[in-house]
């Protein structure tokens, strides 16, 4: 059996997914395989969407042993405490931060404590108990303390970075660990007649690259998983109708914010991702409700600096590959599925795909049970993130055709139950423990103005005056702690400013 170990892994496509896979596989299974090869063509551009990330990227980088300061400098990264949502709720801007709203009290969740206090006439905002929200509002940042019990140890953070620079950084990392890069354009794929496994990719100029395990990181083209193996695609555009994005970078103005902004527009929304040297912007929209020209005007009219190029158009369909692992081919990144970058989940999904591939690492036979388990786990991640993104549209009270459509569309059963449960009693049901947790869902429900009909009756067991005092104390601690942090720009200057 030992003789059937995978000897050669072929990664098809560079870009962030491809080089993340190359870096992780070279670090973690490099010793076991004879060779890891990455085939990419300099002629094919990479998408480079997903410049904002989730905190899980830090664990991924740590697994590789990357030095955080070096990583930040190389990718011109800024720190991210969460996402600011403007215009999604017509009444006010809200924040989805990487922290909770304080600890439980006598087994009662903090958002329930707030609801109970609010019912008794307390007018303080729930956001006052979220350290990431308050710090972001002040433009302040420092990494959390190790002490999880302290409010300054109770939040997490991610990065906003240049994805192309990240891919280049990981390329150097992977090549130093023996990954071989082959420049070439793939013109055909050869399957083994006996079992339909991918045998080799054929490059322009009559070259071929053969392998035992293929990682399809070819982006929307999905060269192996779809064009060759016909895995099939579950189209989710009936729930996520946005199908275009226009992306443009603009000059930076002022200090970079320690958060990503999402600004709702007539038929979509705009991202604003501050990096050290520039700001990434994009307008995600639905082509049924707005034309490209108007969408471009909206984007260019909402930049806070001079555009550095003409906007680039991307076309997409929300959805997921029916099987992202088929035979000896595993699709990662856009080849595996697409969800709009509203919650910065693209790179996170690449990380979890790589992590699960390593946990379920096959031998040359590629036991179908491993693929089945991988596909089960990935489907659960994609679906739970999908539902979280749908919620943003579903619960928005914004006017406009797109928004009306989303308010009235039939939504997945699981999400319907989640919304009904929250409206009934403020309870958050989670289907995937690895995805967005209770504070994230609460941030969205409350932020969009969805409040339950009643709070947790257990909160009524806490004496009102005592609760009020406790919440006052917590608010004071959060405000003081946030104020004690350095300004985000000053922190970057001191520790990790990229060379210009």
């Amino acid at each position, binding site marked *: 059996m030992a003789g059937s170990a995978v000897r050669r892994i072929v990664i098809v496509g560079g870009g962030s997914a491809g080089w993340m896979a190359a870096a992780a596989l070279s670090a973690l299974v490099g010793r076991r395989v004879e060779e890891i090869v990455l085939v990419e063509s300099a002629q094919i551009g990479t998408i480079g969407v997903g410049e904002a990330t989730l905190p899980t990227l830090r664990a991924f980088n740590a697994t590789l042993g990357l030095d955080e300061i070096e990583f930040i400098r190389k990718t011109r990264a800024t720190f991210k405490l969460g996402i600011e949502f403007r215009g999604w709720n017509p009444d006010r801007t809200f924040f989805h931060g990487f922290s909770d709203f304080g600890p439980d009290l006598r087994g009662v969740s903090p958002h329930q404590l707030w609801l109970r206090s609010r019912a008794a006439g307390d007018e303080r905002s729930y956001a006052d108990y979220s350290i990431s929200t308050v710090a972001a509002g002040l433009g302040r940042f420092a990494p959390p303390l190790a002490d999880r019990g302290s409010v300054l140890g109770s939040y997490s953070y991610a990065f906003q970075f240049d994805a192309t620079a990240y891919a280049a950084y990981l390329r150097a990392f992977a090549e130093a660990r023996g990954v071989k890069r082959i420049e070439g354009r793939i013109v055909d794929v050869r399957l083994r007649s006996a079992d339909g496994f991918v045998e080799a990719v054929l490059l322009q100029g009559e070259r071929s690259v053969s392998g035992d395990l293929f990682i399809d990181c070819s982006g929307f083209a999905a060269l192996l998983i779809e064009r060759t193996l016909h895995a099939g695609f579950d189209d989710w555009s009936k729930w996520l109708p946005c199908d275009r994005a226009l992306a443009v970078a603009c000059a930076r103005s002022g200090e970079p914010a320690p958060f990503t902004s999402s600004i709702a527009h007539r038929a979509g929304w705009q991202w604003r991702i501050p990096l050290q040297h520039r700001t990434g912007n994009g307008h995600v929209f639905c082509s049924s409700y707005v034309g490209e020209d108007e969408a471009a005007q909206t984007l260019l009219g909402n930049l806070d600096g001079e555009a550095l190029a003409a906007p680039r158009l991307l076309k997409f369909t929300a959805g997921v590959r029916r099987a992202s692992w088929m035979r000896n081919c595993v699709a990662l990144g856009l080849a595996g599925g697409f969800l709009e970058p509203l919650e910065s989940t693209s790179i996170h999904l690449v990380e979890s795909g790589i992590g699960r591939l390593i946990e*379920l690492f096959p031998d040359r036979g590629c036991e179908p049970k491993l693929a089945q388990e991988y596909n089960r786990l990935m489907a659960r991640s994609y679906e739970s993130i999908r539902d979280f993104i749908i919620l943003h549209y579903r619960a928005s009270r914004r006017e406009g055709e797109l928004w009306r459509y989303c308010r009235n569309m039939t939504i997945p059963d699981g999400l319907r139950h989640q919304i009904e449960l929250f409206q009934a009693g403020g309870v958050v*049901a989670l289907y995937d423990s690895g995805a967005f947790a209770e504070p994230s869902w609460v941030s969205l429900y409350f932020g969009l103005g969805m409040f339950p*009909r009643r709070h947790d009756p*257990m909160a009524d067991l806490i004496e009102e005056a005592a609760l009020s005092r406790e919440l006052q104390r917590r608010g004071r601690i959060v405000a003081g702690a946030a104020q004690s942090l350095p300004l985000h720009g000053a922190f970057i200057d001191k520790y990790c400013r990229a060379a210009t």
Partner: protein
Amino acid sequence: MTEPGQGAARGLRSIVIVGGDVAGWMAAAALARVLGPAACELILVEPNESTTGGADGALPNLRAFHALLGIEEREFLAATHATIKLATQFHDWGRVGEGFLHAFGPYGVDVKHELFQAYWLARRRAGRPSPLEEWSVTGLAATLGRFGTRPANDSSALRHLSYAYHFDAGLYARLLRTHAEKRGVRRVEGEVVDVTLNDKGRVESLRLRDGRAIGSDFFIDCSGPDARVIAGALRTGYEDWSQWLPCNRAVTIECESTGDPTPVTEATARASGWQWRIPLRRGAGCGHVYCSLYLSDDEAASELLAVAGDAPLGDPRLLRFTAGRRANAWVANCLALGDAAGVLEPLEATGIHRVQTGLGRLFALFPDRDFDPAISAEYNRLTALEHARVRDFLVLHYAASQRDDAPFWRHCRAMPLPETLTHKRDLFARAGRIAQLEEETFVPASWLAIYTGLGVWPERPEPIIDIVGAAAVAGRFDAMPETIRKAVATLPAHATYLAEAAGIA
């Protein structure tokens, strides 16, 4: 959007628990503790003083329940004739004459389960098999009959020691009753003869044989498998799982015992079922679970008496049951707990555990008088998942057995399995991975013990070992059995611990 604010006004004013026994009194004690002396009245209705006794076992998180209630271990041990439970010893399940241990707690010392499992399987493949209990402080302590507790900050391998209890269920119910009544639960003695529903289809009141009526906002049905309220009155169906768990009878008996009690439940496979032996402080509880299609009640009882090495006390008691779960454990203003919510044979001792998790879910989803169906739907979703996971774990014990010496076992080997279990078993058998689905009760360490104990070994090698580098892994693991042996050797004998902890010399 509705503004919040009506919370307190719609709170429950009263809760009636129907049925005593362990489930009923667990509910009563926990509600009284959590709700405190608030405006909510707590009443438990049970037909008579004597609760059903018999030895029972628990899972380790019962200790968290006791911490919640403020029940000290010393008090519990003394009141319920309890012993420590570290493991279940299985005999004759995989093949007649073979046995294996399913111990609580993790394997190895400070190592992720996946890595331990990969190492242990690779080691066996390399011709160096080693029993699982050598890799578990809990398993080794179980084998050697040792037990002791350690300070919370203990840094030795003993911090991986995990344990539960064996105890007398009747005495446990009495202990819980004391705690519940001390905290204001009112006990009403009487037999429920009728249940009145209101025009919304909710339970309005119970009528007792003596004519009294007891009304309430909320009812907790702990009346056992008959489920007088949720099934009898509310007509909630039952999902029958006997196609996968064909055992439908149990005959039980209390025994006198000589010698010190072991910290281990014994589960011995028989021709048409299996037999348990649960050691208590004095004596033991024995039982024979079987399928009536293959064995008569008389045969079952005489088989039980013949093999119970201990001297029987009293006559055997017979129980009939059908494995399965209530279609919905929470309907309108009635929640079912215990056997009213689902019946799974005592293999792996999940009965009391499921009452505890049910109460946990109730507190997380606590209702008001509106009984919003979305709240009970969430309770029912989670409860259904939990039961299906436990079911699959129990079914595995039968389905993966290699026995073909009796019609019952041949039936079990041939029966079609739930799809979820087929996926899990095949993933392990072919690729050596353990799938965890939502709401699992049993962790991968437990699944590993059962699979391999029954003779299911993965077909393919474990690449993860090569990933880490074989030499590094071996160096880390090779010293573990000795570390574990040394740590366990510092523990007192189980009987000594009991005598000292419970203050009974």
